[in-house]
């Protein structure tokens, strides 16, 4: 176990260091959520005027919940890009050779993804508060919201880690981010689920991201709903993705 933590600590430190000393790596993961917040909360706020839209904290908070979770997911996705880059540069192969407990590599990258998201999530939250976002949730509710974000970040990081380790090329970038992007956008992003129509409504009803998003919005509004379901789905997702990431690592080990 000591060797596991030793490897995880080393990989996490390198991942965090690379993120914060290289603006080219850090800035996109900060800019993307900020511009989604500006574009959705700013450009689409008239949507809140349609009949039966009754989210009490307002449209900025409604969109913040989505952007907050999206930034968590993309914190994991961007870490996947870094893993793929490490394989292309040859660093990851050297890492595989010298790591005494290789599963610590996955844990290290996951911690790196989490720290990266803490920076992004803080910036997005401050931006939303400056934009006048209302928060009706209590301290406990907000801790619940943060926990949801952490789990989303973990699930996305493990997914990205698995793909990056299976394919070991930067060209895997599209494959890493597209499914995450699609799953997130097939949730009720712009209006509550009951106001969705057509095929998106049918898909959103069974999309696990919907429960997570509705739980986040409920916590922010101080009227929690589907919280247990969201945590259950995310924990199950984390277990499945941990197995997926481990298999990706095994594939990389076999490839040498």
């Amino acid at each position, binding site marked *: 176990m000591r060797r596991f933590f030793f490897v995880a600590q080393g990989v996490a430190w390198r991942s965090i260091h690379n993120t914060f000393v290289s603006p080219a790596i850090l800035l996109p993961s900060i800019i993307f959520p900020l511009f989604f917040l500006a574009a959705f909360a700013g*450009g689409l706020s008239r949507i809140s005027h349609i009949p039966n839209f009754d989210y009490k904290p307002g449209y900025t908070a409604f969109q913040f919940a989505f952007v907050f979770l999206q930034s968590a997911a993309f914190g994991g996705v961007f870490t996947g890009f870094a893993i793929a880059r490490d394989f292309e540069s040859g660093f990851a192969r050297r890492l595989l050779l010298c790591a005494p407990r290789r599963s610590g590599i996955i844990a290290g990258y996951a911690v790196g993804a989490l720290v990266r998201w803490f920076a992004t999530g803080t910036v997005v939250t401050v931006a939303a508060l400056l934009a006048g976002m209302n928060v009706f949730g209590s301290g406990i509710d907000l801790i619940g919201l943060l926990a949801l974000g952490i789990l989303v970040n973990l699930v996305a990081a493990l997914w990205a880690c698995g793909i990056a380790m299976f394919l070991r090329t930067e060209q895997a970038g599209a494959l890493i981010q597209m499914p995450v992007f699609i799953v997130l956008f097939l949730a009720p992003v712009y209006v509550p689920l009951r106001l969705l129509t057509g095929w998106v409504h049918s898909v959103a009803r069974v999309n696990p991201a919907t429960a997570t998003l509705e739980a986040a919005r409920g916590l922010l509004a101080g009227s929690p709903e589907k919280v247990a379901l969201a945590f259950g789905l995310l924990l199950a997702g984390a277990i499945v993705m941990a197995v997926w990431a481990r298999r990706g690592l095994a594939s990389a080990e076999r490839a040498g």
Partner: protein
Amino acid sequence: MAVAAVAVAEAPSEPHLLVQVGAIARRSITRTVRQRGLLVFPLLFPLILFAINGSALSSARRIPGFPHVGYGDFVLAVTFIQGALFVAVSAGTDLARDIESGFFNRLALTPLSGSALLAGQLGGALVIALIQSFIYLSVGVISGVTIASGLAGALVVILLSIVIAFGFAGLGSLLALRFGTGEAVQGFFPLLFVAVFLSSSSLPRNLIQVSWFREVATYNPVSYMIEGLRSLIITGWDGQALALGFGFALVLSAVTLSLAGAAMKNRLVRT
């Protein structure tokens, strides 16, 4: 005297400009077609967003003052602009790869003119733009979008989207020539994407509630490109919207291509 005359007669003449452009364009097109990943992603991503947003934002039709059309009709124009952004990145990345691999330096040793090289390099981008605009329009029509300006209008939609894509491809080339790396070109992609979102892409400008956003959208040339395309799809023949759409697209092309031409001259300096 006779020897000199023979030497002049045998000196290789510089190929015609069109021949030079053709040679580079053929290479650019072949390379583009061979890289299926480059074709598939620019095609699919805007279509996915069209499918999702067209349905997820359909409630926007209930906003008082929204045009009396389906949201899919309203948002189809944005698909062409998003496709044009991918064309820009693709054109810029291809050019940057030539610079990074040294191919560009070898071309600099040939009699090839800079303008022919630039025009030829954009050939692949134009092929992508043509294919994708045709596919976007077809998918739109199949999914129930009605082109208010009819068949002639549909052809003008394709023409305008190609002019817009050409302008953005010029921007991609400019970035590649200025910075010389594909990473730098791709790093600018989020900024281009922001330009699309901070426009009238999701709602008409008069329905944007937040004043700073409405101001930005009003000064953003991308709004007018979108509105030019959108007018043909949902309104019919709107001279003002078309003039602004074509005008801004042509200005973008002229500015980016002249700046790229100047940057090309610096890249091709024989040392």
